[in-house]
């Protein structure tokens, strides 16, 4: 349970805090000059860089899992649960 909560907090910090920080970059306080178009596209590219990086890691992991743990892989071996017959 502790590990689970730790994982959740870590994910929350990694995801929410940076994006909240970006949000304040929108800056609509009076008198402040912000070129929103430049800002938004800059933000978009930064976020897409993060999204593509994380996406590549997760997608790569999925593809590796599919190839490595498919039952037709020569390295595949029965799981401990198969020996017990219940899962």
């Amino acid at each position, binding site marked *: 349970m502790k590990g689970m909560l730790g994982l959740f907090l870590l*994910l929350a910090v990694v995801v929410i805090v940076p994006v909240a920080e970006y949000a304040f970059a929108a800056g609509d306080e009076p008198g402040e000059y912000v070129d929103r178009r430049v800002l938004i596209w800059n*933000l978009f590219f930064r976020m897409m860089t993060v999204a593509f990086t994380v996406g590549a890691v997760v997608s790569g992991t999925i593809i590796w899992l599919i190839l490595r*743990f498919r*039952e037709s892989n020569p390295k595949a071996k029965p799981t401990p*649960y198969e020996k017990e017959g219940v899962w």
Partner: protein
Amino acid sequence: MVLELQKPRPIWQIMFSTHHTDVGLLYLISSLAFLFLGGTLALAIRAELFLPGAQIIADAMTFNRMFTVHGTTLIFLFIIPFASAVGNYFVPIMVRYKDMAYPKLNAIAFWMIPPAGALIWLGFADFTWYATPPYSIISAPGPAADMWIFGLKILGISSVLGAINFIVTILKCKHPDMSIGQVPLLAWSFLSSSLIILVAIPTFAAALLMLLTDRLGVSGFFNPALGGDPIAYAHLFWFTFHPEVYVLVIPAIGMMYEIIPRFSRKPIFSYGSGVFAFVLLSIVGFSSWAHHMYATGMSFTEKTVFMVGTLAAVPASAMHVFNFLATMWNGRIRFSTPMMWAVGGIALFFSAGAGGVVNSAMPLDFSTHDTYWVVGHFHLFVMGTIAFGSIGYLYYMFPYVTGRMYNEAMGKIHFILSFVGTVLVFFTQHVLGLYGMPRRIFDYPPIPEWIAMNQIASVGAMIIGVSMAVFLANMIHSSAKGTPTDTDDPFGLGGKYYYPFEARNPHH
């Protein structure tokens, strides 16, 4: 309880039955019928957008009617009833009870769907699935609009009745020996989504009544000419329908939780984190509705609150993805058709979620608001995640329902074509949105990039259409003439992965 189709009975016995598997079967057949109807409209829409100018649809009004009924059908008449089909079939078995808690109420909830579907299809309203005010109040043609409102009203009541039934069945009717911590994750997903329905739907029910009285001219809640505010409708609508996104996606994830451990030949990596993520999603789903309205002049503080509220769903969703990946790790995975759909659904779920993070960042939302980016984003969720999980589960439950095996090769062809088609349509629509193409338009200027992207998307849609034809042929043929199967282990996985053994609820 299984083999509904192997022991033929008169159709009226099934239609007037209150047994959970019979009602589940009715839900299943009706939802699939509406899947094909709604999908046909999607093909027509994509064919129309293949080139600028009018192609096969006569005018913009007809186009508006088609995408309104397309969206309404696939969300309310396919996805939700399909989840109800699965829940009806398996939740009582999973909690080891003889039936749903209120069988007659269950049958009534189903029988509300056909008349509601008829109202929506015979009316063929044109004001989008959002019933956009003030257009929907002032000038949307009746009786189509009124029929849509009544149809949605009936569907809302049906959802609430179904939700009450699931909650009582899971919490009060589960076997005394079974603690809530032993209830399978699929049943947990129904518990979570049912609780969301109970909280969310009444708001939209009220909004529909207000919309109707506005149309009748006896009130002006959303009519600016009478001092009303269309943005108030937006709040009421999205207070229901952002959480509704989780009502749609949570059961699909629950279905993946059934498929992935079975075919990985391992128990789920972390049952606790699955439950935690379901409960968390059902709570944070209510903290994000206004992210649909960043462009309506909300204050900066409000926008920030809803942006953070939206992002709170990311860790919960990621927990599901990591749980699936960790379950597959060190497994011995058989990639039968259900597993292919489930794994494809995970990949697309992640892609859709990544697009959603971009959407929820309010400065970016101004760039993508009401463009095809949004269309691509939510379709990737609805088709790529929810439909993939659902169709995977349909293949998974097929032997238990029919006592026969579907054609595995056709199932895999169905998956491959659907996956390729989904990527072509909905990834391309994201890019199209960045090129600035607005959503809900009948015609578009002949900008080369727009034409190319639309053509790619339309080809993708046709590929999905072909895959669905393969699916239909497989289901019909295999139901009648498929190879009879061993219902204790139809996928040949070995072992005693559970529910066929408990699947012995006699008809009553």
